Structures are given as structure tokens and as C-alpha cells.
């Protein structure tokens, strides 16, 4: 095969792959619905009004952490990034990202990487109040911007793993994520309406938790519900799924800080 033929073949393969991905979207972009549209009026009212949204407690704490140096003689987040409303606008909608070495990085991991590399500070524990506060504050700056994660290049392998996890059956109930959130969304499960399962409002305040939690925690709660083995917070398989979920919700506006039941 000469060079030109090879290029044409490569382009063809790429085009088929693109078509393939587009066809594999179980929910068409115009049919995407944020989780809040499945919630009752009380929860919707709580999310839409910043004065009533309890997650704003975390956001305000995050704003303070943004301005203060984490340890003595260190720079604050604001010292490099300046005004978050400008510098962090739209940033969270591009996460999770995949580093050149193939590691999936969500906003939490990016904050911890920044702490280690530029602030000389110890990483914050997953699900700690401070990390949730900073993540909520950073992610809130992207409110309204459409989710747009990258799944090609170094991200391809993680995306594939995430997709596999999503469609695999887990736990004693032997359910896959897709069986509820793709095949049965909109139907009732006891007192709940099954949502499409997008992560665009996280970190979110969940009334059940009476606190803000990450997407990671929400995924683990789902795994607990189907009686599956729960990975540790920030486990690679959860990050892979988060990447897949980002692609699945492509175009859906970020809602952080959300309120959920």
C-alpha cells in the first residue's frame, strides 16, 4: 500500500470510528436531560436559588480557601489564577482530563496536583470538606457551560475502560449502569424517578447525605445500591467511568453546585 492509500485508509477508519461513536450514543444529544429535571419542585427550587442552596456553604468556604495560602510561605490559588470567575470559567466542563501517561485527572485530582507541585502542601483527602469546598467553588465558575470532555488520543484507553464498566453487570443484583440509566430512565423506582445518570451537577448537595459529595461518592452510592463491591474514593475505575459519563453528557450545561435527593 502506498502512502496516499494508507492515509485514505486511516481517514476512512477515523470516519467510521466517529460514526460508530455517534451511533453508540444511547441517548441522543437533544434528548439529554439533567438530573434536576427528574426532581420534585422543592428540590428544583432549592438548586435554582443560591440563597436557599445549602451547597453554597461549601462554595463560600471554597472561595475563602482559594484566597488563602494553604501553608505558610506558599502561594494561594488566587496568586497564580487570579479572579476565579474569569480564570476558571468553563474549566470544569472539560474535566475529567487524561494526562499524557494515561492517568485520568478530575477536578479534585487537579487541585491536589497543584497543591503538590506549586503550593508545597499535602494533598487533601478525597471527600474531605476542604477538597469538596474548593472543587465546588472551581466547578461553579463553569455553571452554564456545556460539558465537553476529550476522549481521543491518550484518553482513548481510559474511555474504553469506563465504557466497559458502564455496560458490565455488577454486584449481587447483577445490574449494569445502562440497565437503569439508559434503558429505564424516566420510570419510577419506588419513590424515585430514574434519571439519565449525568454528573453535570456534582459536587452536589444530596439531601440523603445532608452534605455535599463528589461524583465519585455518588457512583459509589449507586454501586452500594446494587450490592456491588465499592471501590475506594478516587479509585481509577471510578475516574474511568466519570470520563465516560462526561462524554455521555456531552453538551449538557454544568450545574454545580446541584441539589439532589
Amino acid at each position, binding site marked *: 500500500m502506498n502512502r496516499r492509500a494508507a492515509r485514505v485508509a486511516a481517514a476512512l477508519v477515523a470516519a467510521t470510528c466517529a460514526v460508530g461513536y455517534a451511533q453508540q450514543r444511547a441517548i441522543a444529544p437533544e434528548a439529554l436531560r439533567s438530573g434536576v429535571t427528574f426532581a420534585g419542585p422543592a428540590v428544583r427550587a432549592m438548586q435554582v436559588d443560591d440563597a436557599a442552596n445549602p451547597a453554597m456553604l461549601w462554595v463560600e468556604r471554597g472561595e475563602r480557601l482559594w484566597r488563602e495560602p494553604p501553608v505558610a510561605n506558599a502561594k494561594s490559588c488566587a496568586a497564580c489564577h487570579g479572579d476565579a470567575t474569569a480564570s476558571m470559567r468553563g474549566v470544569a466542563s472539560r474535566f475529567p482530563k487524561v494526562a499524557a501517561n494515561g492517568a485520568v485527572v478530575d477536578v479534585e485530582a487537579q487541585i491536589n496536583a497543584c497543591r503538590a507541585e506549586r503550593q508545597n502542601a499535602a494533598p487533601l483527602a478525597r471527600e474531605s470538606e476542604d477538597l469538596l469546598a474548593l472543587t465546588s467553588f472551581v466547578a461553579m465558575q463553569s455553571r452554564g457551560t456545556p460539558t465537553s470532555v476529550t476522549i481521543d488520543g491518550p484518553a482513548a484507553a481510559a474511555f474504553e475502560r469506563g465504557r466497559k464498566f458502564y455496560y458490565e453487570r455488577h454486584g449481587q443484583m447483577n445490574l449494569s449502569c445502562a440497565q437503569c440509566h439508559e434503558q429505564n430512565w424516566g420510570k419510577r423506582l419506588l419513590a424515585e424517578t430514574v434519571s439519565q445518570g449525568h454528573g453535570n451537577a456534582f459536587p452536589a448537595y444530596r439531601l440523603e447525605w*445532608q452534605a455535599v459529595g463528589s461524583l465519585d461518592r455518588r457512583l459509589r452510592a449507586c454501586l452500594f445500591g446494587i450490592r456491588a463491591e465499592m471501590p475506594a474514593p478516587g479509585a481509577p475505575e471510578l475516574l474511568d467511568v466519570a470520563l465516560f459519563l462526561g462524554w455521555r453528557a456531552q453538551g449538557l450545561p454544568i450545574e454545580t453546585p446541584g441539589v439532589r435527593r
Partner: protein
Amino acid sequence: MAFARIQLPPEAKRGEVCEVRISIRHPMETGYRVDDLGKQIPRNTIRDLTCKLNGTLMLRANLGSGVSANPYLRFFITAAESGDLVFEWVDDAGERGDAKATLRVVG
């Protein structure tokens, strides 16, 4: 780190009614729950909360296990003078918290 969020109107007219809102990050443990190992989680609720404007008591509330986590209080005061609105509270564990906001009264 205790943290709270106080919301006031940007300014209040002298002698008129003014809305004050506060939400406080607190677990408000009822004392009836058990942890994963079956051990009772001790009760920890905000017991006593006060709100003072320039040292004058505006509100005193005794909360308890009937109030959900991250309590949210909304009440009205008559805006008599500008000054610092200071909230102070103490919970069953003896931990104290406080929060402050400035009330601006015009006219």
C-alpha cells in the same frame, strides 16, 4: 473550621423590617443513629444560638435534634441602627462557632 453563611439585604431603611437569614454547617447528630459497626453516634446538635446587633440581643434560639443538618434560620428584625450582626452558637460537644455580618441602615 465552623462555617456559616449570613444573608442580609444590601441596605435596610431605618425603622423598617429587615430579613436576616443564616445557614450553618453542622451535622446536627440526633444521638439515635448508629455507625457501620453498630456503635451509637453521640448526640451533637447546636444547643444555643444567639444573634446580637451592637451587643443588643436580637434572637436567642434553642435548637435540638428535631432540626435537620446544616440548620437554616430566617427571621426579621427592626432595623434601628447600622452595625455588626454577630451570631454565636455552642453545640453539645462544647464547640463554639461564630459568624458576623455588617448591617447597613440608611435614612
